[in-house]
């Protein structure tokens, strides 16, 4: 049996990665954001899982608009870091875990989640920035193998928040059913409120974001009940990325213990949020 030991939700703003890559984390504009990450990073450094699952979205780097999978899983042995146009981030490629991917795929299919399969996938900032939030100095390799689960949040209609939460719940059951006594970390990424285009560009909604940070811990069903329109109106057209946090939360126990959370405006055009939960407070039924 495998066990989810923690869940980490974090924004994936590209400039967070750029600030780290360029050694700007102590600059006055960036220091408060990275100071907010510190307690989570310290805790995570002492709780390295055997494998992690990272729920993310691509931004026109690993896939384009020819094919837009609603939900997809990577089954590769390695995932290259994408060159988004001007050289790849100076971070390690990602080592996968094909055997575990195949197990998750089979179990999720059997539960009615018809995932697209990536045998090859370049991962962009949507993937590598959350890894950097977790592990700022990975050296030659990330702390453990990581399996990508991709969610379409760019092309309307995105999956509903309820469907993302249900996928997470099925994922939790699939993880629990994997033999080999392994520990698993799960990351939900994206958000929080932001909007890049249109007259409402620059929109930030701290009231919604704080509600979300509280409810993702205690009342995820409330967030799963919100419609696409609710997310786009209240969190901005790109804030709908927050539905990916619900995949993470669904894979965790009904009760989790918050280790740390942080909220900072702005990271570029975005409200950056982080929430880390210990999943070992109760046992799965």
């Amino acid at each position: 049996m495998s066990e989810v030991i923690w869940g980490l939700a974090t924004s994936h703003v590209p400039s967070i990665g750029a600030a780290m890559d360029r050694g700007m984390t102590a600059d006055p504009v960036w220091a408060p954001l990275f100071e907010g990450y510190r307690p989570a990073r310290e805790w995570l450094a002492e709780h390295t899982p055997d494998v992690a699952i990272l729920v993310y979205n691509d931004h026109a780097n690993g896939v384009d608009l020819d094919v837009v999978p609603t939900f997809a899983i990577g089954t590769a042995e390695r995932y290259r870091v994408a060159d988004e146009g001007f050289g790849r981030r100076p971070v390690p490629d990602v080592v996968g875990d094909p055997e575990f991917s195949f197990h998750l795929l089979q179990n999720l299919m059997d539960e009615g989640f018809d995932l697209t399969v990536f045998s090859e996938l370049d991962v962009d900032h949507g993937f590598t920035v959350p890894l950097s939030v977790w592990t700022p100095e990975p050296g030659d390799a990330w702390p453990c193998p990581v399996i990508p689960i991709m969610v379409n949040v760019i092309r309307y209609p995105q999956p509903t928040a309820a469907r993302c939460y249900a996928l997470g719940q099925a994922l939790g059951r699939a993880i629990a059913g994997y033999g080999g006594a392994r520990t698993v970390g799960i990351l939900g990424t994206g958000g929080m409120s932001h909007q890049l285009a249109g007259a409402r560009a620059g929109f930030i909604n701290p009231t919604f974001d704080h509600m979300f940070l509280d409810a993702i811990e205690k009342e995820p069903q409330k967030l799963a009940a919100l419609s696409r329109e609710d997310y786009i109106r209240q969190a901005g057209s790109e804030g709908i990325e927050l539905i990916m946090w619900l995949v993470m939360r669904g894979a965790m126990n009904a009760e989790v213990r918050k280790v740390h959370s942080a909220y900072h405006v702005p990271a570029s055009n975005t409200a950056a949020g982080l929430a880390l939960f210990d999943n070992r407070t109760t046992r799965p039924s």
Partner: protein
Amino acid sequence: MSSQSRPDLPGTYVFDGPTSLRGHNMNKLFMSLRTENARTQFRADEAGYCRAFGLSEAQTSAVLGRDWQSMLDLGGSIFYIYKLAMMDGLSMQYLGGVFTGMSEADFKAAMLAGGRTDV
């Protein structure tokens, strides 16, 4: 709800099916600009490059004139449009300024002050 039903929110683009269809060729062009080779070709003959990707006249004018707002109106996705902006050395905050009628400096200042909470 009809199959085309989508949120209609002022000042907000929703990249739905019809929009994606309208902007497909233009977004493909933007996607291609990830490689230096393609950027060199594009710079050498922008109009010809637009023709090769099958852009409409209006889309071609928007690209050649760097009319970022029109690119959105003609089916561009911001994540794809941004690849052209990056090639030009422009930031997402510059684009935010264009979309909201602000200078880049004013847009940045608005974000640093906590973002635009009243829109």
